[in-house]
């Protein structure tokens, strides 16, 4: 621990400065009072292009990504690079979808995706399923942010769980006080630090190692020598389909996560969202460069601490940078974990408040009640995430996150397709959801990894030969489960219509999906759906 003293001091100082900002954030763009979900949970729905860029960027590109993606390249090679196509296809794909969601949400005062589903399909049950899916998918995601911090702490020789508990207690306190304003303000610092660190890394490290040619060649040598069949600096015939479906499926899932939608709804108009869809890929470039740190670590001969591959990037920094700068880099990862963790806990809390508490416990809850319940729930969510890390194996959190991606995809027919069409019957959507969930779990359960001896939940690449096909190809389980969901939802809709089953009402109007800032109905029609 002593040889890491400089790093620890730099890390601690930066961490404390940022925490101070989190508390001060409640005064930033100060509203009359914070006692409503619009203010506490969505920052007053007033963020412009810059704030939204930092907020959504800080939200989607998490500390865990920065640690885990390079670790994946370090271990498996080209397959890990799926993060790049994934974050390229996402923005054009959601460009038109999110502005519709923004418009309809502002007219009706929706705070969560489940709010929208409730009004669109007239089904509190379906909304409840969407809300629970969102909460369950988000919890392990928050826990993974702690894995990111842990990797950094471990590399500084700091062990034990106390530092993590303290870090999360501070995070919980300022999120409680400032709501979404806290991560929005902190995101500026986090991203500035990350950009500085990565620019330095991609200039300094390749120069020290003899250039990019050497880095890629060393990686190629490592994978050529390894007995694993799927690795290499290029894809092979059997994992291309997995690469493409994983990139596409992950992109579909990303904006279904409640925390991404929270970031989008907090922006002030449709143009802010459109402009961000063209500016957010700056982070994709960053992520692409970060992922290559995995190959740099191969060329530099970096070894992980124990068997924890997530320590590869922190160890590489320690090896390559002077102590004070390593401290800055570690702080970037540590603070990088706080921003998404705060937004995720707010999003999960909003789902609970709007779609469970208000729906089933206290239908006449006032704005102040809602804000109070959300604040308390956000604390509980964080306690849950810390408990995940303390009491469960880290590997188990990663499994849960994997499952999370597959299950959040099952909300696509109701949330994303629902923005375009009211064709689906609520009963069809519910049976589709049940079928998709079941299929997803079954597929993941049957994915093993012979190399580690793990029989179940060992990854997301489902071997097609298990379906009786004569091939060694694999495919992303989430996409298969979604296909089952869509097929059953369509079939269920036809059957429900034929049987004359009562459908829910639709509180939205085609014109609501086009409204923009300045539209009088955005205030006038507020909360008509409730």
């Amino acid at each position, binding site marked *: 621990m002593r040889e890491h003293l400089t790093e620890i001091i730099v890390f601690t100082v930066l961490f404390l400065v940022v925490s101070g900002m989190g508390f001060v954030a409640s005064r930033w763009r100060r509203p009359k009072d914070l006692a409503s979900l619009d203010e506490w949970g969505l920052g007053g729905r007033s963020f412009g292009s810059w704030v939204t860029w930092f907020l959504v960027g800080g939200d989607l590109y998490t500390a865990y990504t920065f640690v885990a993606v390079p670790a994946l390249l370090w271990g498996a090679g080209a397959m890990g690079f799926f993060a790049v196509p994934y974050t*390229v296809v996402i923005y*054009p794909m959601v460009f038109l979808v999110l502005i*519709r969601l923004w418009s309809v949400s502002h007219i009706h005062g929706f705070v969560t995706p489940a709010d929208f589903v409730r009004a669109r399909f007239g089904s509190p049950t379906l909304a409840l399923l969407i809300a629970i899916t969102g909460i369950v998918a988000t919890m392990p995601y928050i826990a993974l942010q702690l894995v990111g911090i842990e990797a950094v702490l471990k590399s500084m020789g700091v062990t034990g769980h106390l530092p993590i508990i303290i870090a999360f207690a501070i995070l919980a306190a300022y999120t409680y006080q400032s709501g979404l304003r806290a991560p929005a303000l902190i995101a500026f610092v986090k991203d500035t630090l990350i950009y500085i660190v990565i620019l330095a890394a991609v200039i300094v490290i390749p120069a020290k190692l003899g250039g990019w040619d050497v880095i*890629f060649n060393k990686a190629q040598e490592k994978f050529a020598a390894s007995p694993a069949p799927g690795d290499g600096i*290029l894809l092979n015939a059997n994992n291309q389909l997995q690469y493409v479906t994983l990139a596409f499926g992950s992109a579909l899932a990303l904006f279904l996560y409640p925390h991404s939608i929270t970031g989008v709804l907090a922006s002030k108009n449709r143009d802010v969202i*459109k402009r961000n869809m063209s500016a957010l890929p700056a982070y994709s470039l960053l992520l692409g460069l970060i992922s290559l740190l995995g190959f740099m670590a191969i060329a530099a001969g970096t070894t992980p601490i124990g068997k924890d591959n997530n320590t590869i990037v922190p160890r590489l920094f320690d090896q390559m940078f002077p102590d004070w700068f390593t401290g800055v880099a570690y702080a970037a990862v540590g603070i990088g974990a706080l921003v998404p963790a705060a937004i995720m806990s707010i999003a999960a809390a909003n789902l609970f408040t709007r779609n469970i508490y208000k729906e089933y416990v206290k239908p006449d809850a006032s704005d102040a009640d809602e804000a109070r319940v959300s604040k308390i729930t956000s604390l509980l969510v964080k306690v849950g995430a810390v408990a995940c890390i303390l009491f469960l194996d880290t590997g188990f959190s990663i499994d849960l996150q994997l499952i999370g991606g597959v299950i959040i995809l099952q909300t696509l027919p109701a949330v994303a397709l629902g923005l375009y069409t009211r064709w689906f019957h609520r009963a069809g959507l519910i049976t589709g959801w049940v079928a998709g969930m079941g299929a997803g779990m079954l597929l993941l359960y049957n994915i093993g990894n012979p190399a580690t001896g793990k029989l179940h939940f060992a990854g997301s690449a489902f071997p097609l030969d298990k379906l009786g096909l004569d091939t060694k190809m694999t495919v992303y389980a989430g996409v298969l489960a979604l296909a089952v969901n869509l097929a059953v939802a369509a079939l269920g809709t036809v059957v429900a219509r034929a049987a004359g089953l009562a459908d829910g009402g639709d509180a939205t109007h085609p014109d609501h999906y086009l409204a923009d800032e300045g539209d009088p109905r955005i205030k006038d029609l507020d909360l008509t759906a409730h």
Partner: protein
Amino acid sequence: MSAPNGNRSDRSPWNRLLLVPIVLPLLPFLFNSDEPRLLGFPMFYWLQLAFIAVGVTCTTIVYQMTKRGR
């Protein structure tokens, strides 16, 4: 879908441009190759990073052509 208050709609021929950056990165035969290298990067890496620029260009054009006031 009709817009009762007149000329507002999300539809625009420019939107079709968004398909380019969605389809390109999902075609591995385009980029799954080591040669030609660029600045030491195998094609697999530099071309996929270049697709980011394609995505930015297409979304920016669509944004500029469909923003309010046009």
